[in-house]
């Protein structure tokens, strides 16, 4: 069938298909805002409904939920330091800092704009390149993954805060937490201390809700915070970033999109990981890396663009090879299969109009999400002025429900409480949360790719005999050494400046 982007776009503009896109966007934004309820669970609940809807409609709704959640996830991260999705954890770093400065509107707007840039660029790349780049997902075997993960781990060092040693130890602690439960490769139990609950291991959602949300509530209580932000907010229009700020945000969005998209073609590269890496790149290329964490607009734009770009990129291996890169896309694969549609090049040939309609609807849905999100900026921003004795208990309740929801177990609520205390103590000791979270996210991929690679030939030499892993291992070492050296030097320079000012 001779279908293209234009005929797809035309078909996506039918009343029914616009309706499906809007329903998907709204549901996606909703699950994005609610911590704990992720796109995967919402899509799983919708799966039976997919049998009633026309296939195009079902896929448009599902896709809308998936990337709609990437928009919504940043809202609570920015306003309350509770990431609505794992993919928005790093957004909280600078987003919440901006809220505390009364710039929540600006942060929310750039998050939506960044996501939109990624959504539109991502869709266009899907339309232009499509199946041609899908094979990347296959060329990456375990040794290539190991190289990539090792390289990503250098980000741990740059997130380490004041002490590299403390940062690395927190990273290792995160990896250790992630390794509790069932050995993912052999199915044997490890580190469960003989308890039934630990057999399932720690789920990332309650851990994050504890470290960020509950710890934030505890810290606000301890400091007797009256409001997150007490000053005036101004009108909605004044909140939209403009001029140099907008330009910096847009540039970061484009960089985040590229990083998120390329990595997003690979299975296992979750939106949360690519968001971290995009943030790390921003900090490396910035002239003022020390200002990250204090409300840099790039620190919000880049990760939000990256997580949405990763969500978009996943459609390429999914539609052209049937390879799901994230759990949510595995459910979308199920939706396609139940409707009798097998992904692959045949899908593009036989169901061309369907595929192009879905791609066309991505343009429409992303635009709808931007239109939906920008006017709401003013309303959301006012949340930061709600007295904390009202807001605090609501936040706590949302956290507890969110911790319970993904696996339906009370154990996870206690886990969230436990990590709430851990997060509070870490904050008091001025220890960074980022290495812990990054270790938790990267740990399983690191372990698996290392063990699988060595099993392939029985020797670690495999990393040195294949070009991609070799290049990545060398790059990781170079980046690691230069980062440590730069930090050492900048500390030495800072010391000199301090000494010289003391003298005068």
């Amino acid at each position, binding site marked *: 069938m001779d279908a293209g982007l234009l005929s797809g776009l035309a078909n996506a503009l039918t009343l029914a298909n616009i309706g499906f896109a809007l329903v998907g966007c709204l549901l996606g934004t909703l699950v994005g805002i609610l911590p704990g309820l992720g796109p995967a*669970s919402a899509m*799983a609940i919708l799966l039976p409904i997919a*049998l009633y809807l026309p296939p195009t409609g079902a896929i448009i709704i599902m896709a809308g939920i998936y990337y709609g959640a990437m928009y919504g996830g940043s809202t609570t991260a920015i306003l309350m330091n509770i990431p609505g999705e794992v993919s928005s954890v790093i957004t909280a770093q600078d987003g919440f800092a901006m809220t505390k400065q009364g710039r929540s509107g600006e942060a929310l707007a750039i998050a939506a704009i960044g996501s939109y840039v990624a959504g539109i660029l991502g869709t266009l790349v899907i339309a232009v390149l499509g199946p041609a780049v899908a094979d990347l997902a296959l060329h*990456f075997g375990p040794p290539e993954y190991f190289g990539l993960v090792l390289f990503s781990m250098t980000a741990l060092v740059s997130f380490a805060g004041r002490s590299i040693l403390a940062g690395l130890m927190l990273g290792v602690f995160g990896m250790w937490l992630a390794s509790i439960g*069932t050995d993912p490769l052999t199915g044997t139990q490890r580190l469960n201390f003989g308890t039934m609950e630990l057999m399932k291991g720690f789920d990332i959602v309650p851990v994050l809700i504890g470290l960020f949300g509950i710890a934030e509530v505890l810290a606000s209580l301890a400091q007797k915070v009256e409001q997150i932000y007490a000053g005036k907010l101004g009108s909605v229009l004044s909140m939209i970033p403009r001029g140099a700020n907008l330009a910096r945000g847009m540039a970061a969005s484009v960089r985040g999109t590229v990083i998120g998209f390329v990595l997003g073609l690979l299975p296992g590269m979750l939106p949360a990981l690519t968001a971290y890496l995009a943030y790390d790149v921003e900090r490396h290329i910035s002239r003022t890396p020390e200002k990250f964490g204090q409300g840099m607009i790039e620190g919000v734009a880049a990760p939000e663009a990256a997580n949405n770009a990763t969500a978009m990129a996943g459609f390429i291996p999914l539609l052209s090879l049937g390879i799901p890169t994230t759990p949510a896309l595995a459910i979308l694969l199920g939706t396609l299969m139940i409707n009798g549609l*097998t992904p692959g090049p045949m899908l593009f040939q036989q169901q061309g109009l369907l595929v192009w309609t879905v791609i066309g609807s991505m343009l429409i849905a992303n635009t709808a999400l931007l239109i939906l999100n920008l006017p709401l900026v003013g309303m959301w921003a006012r949340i930061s002025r709600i007295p904390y004795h009202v807001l605090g208990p609501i936040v706590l309740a949302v956290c507890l429900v969110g911790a319970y929801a993904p696996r339906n177990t009370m154990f996870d609520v206690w886990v969230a409480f436990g990590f709430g205390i851990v997060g509070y103590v870490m904050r008091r000791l001025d220890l960074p949360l980022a290495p812990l979270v990054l270790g938790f996210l990267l740990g399983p991929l690191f372990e698996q790719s290392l063990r699988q690679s060595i099993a392939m030939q029985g020797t670690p030499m495999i990393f040195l005999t294949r070009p991609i892993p070799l290049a990545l291992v060398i790059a990781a070492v170079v980046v690691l050494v230069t980062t440590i050296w730069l930090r050492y030097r900048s500390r030495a320079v800072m010391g000199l400046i301090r000494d010289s000012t003391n003298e005068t």
Partner: protein
Amino acid sequence: MLRTLMLALTALVSVGASAHAQAKYPTKPIEIIVPFAAGASTDSSARIIAQLLEARWNVPVKVVNKPGGNTVPAVTEVMAARADGTTFLMDNIASSAMLDTVVKNLPYSVFDRTFVSMTTTTPLMFIVHPDSPFKTIKDAVDAAKSDTANFTWTSLGGVGGQDLAFRQFFVAAGVDITKARAIALKGGSEAVTLTAGNHVRLGTGTWSAVAAPFSADKLRVLAVCGDTRWPGLPDTPSMKEAGMPSVDAQFWIGISGPPKLPADIVATWNAALKELLADKAVHAKLLNGGVFPAYLNGADMKARVERDRTTVQKLFGG
């Protein structure tokens, strides 16, 4: 609470099904616990069946995923549930016949649960990269014999459908499995992706993961475990036809309930499932979901578990 909200929202989209309370079972909402994550064969069986039962019985039939821990947490929850016909397990070979070989000192016997009915099954298939020198499963057997130390195969670790198929394969080939090179992976779709990327010499998978890369010419299927061909692969021989009848690993799926589930509840389920699974329209839906209808009543299902358990214990040395 969120789940209820989502259900309410989805109900708006769905065909309005009004709940007429009935005098006899079932009158209350039913929950089917799936011991795996959403998206694969067990989950899609559960969701298709739940939806059909919901339409038939006019009560909500909810599918809840409780993955992880070798299915033990999900099984344990159903074992402890009230035997009132509101809580069921989407049972399968891994959570029953294999369970006490995988997890030692379980606090209950595998046979304590009430077996209700077997519903669906899906055969394991042996797959290779399109450029693989193996044209038939016999070629793979020859390579496994002559070059055992470099014969890489996809293992999902320990005891599962994929590993059962490979253990049967190595026993039938007369090769010591520990001398070959297992690549341990964490999930079925990863095994298929790795094979399609030519990183492993022989892989296995079920149709739900194999279908798409197969249609994209990224995989060849050498043979299908058991004695029947798969509907989507009319030209691929079964392992029986390929001369290895003992390699018959099937990942079957069924419904179980808590211990001492009343016989009339079991009978209601049996009657409903038997009729639904005989329906041609339902067959098509299930095949799209990657599974084949395979109805058995509770007693026959239990016999199947006993038989498979013996096989598993022999192969895995449990």
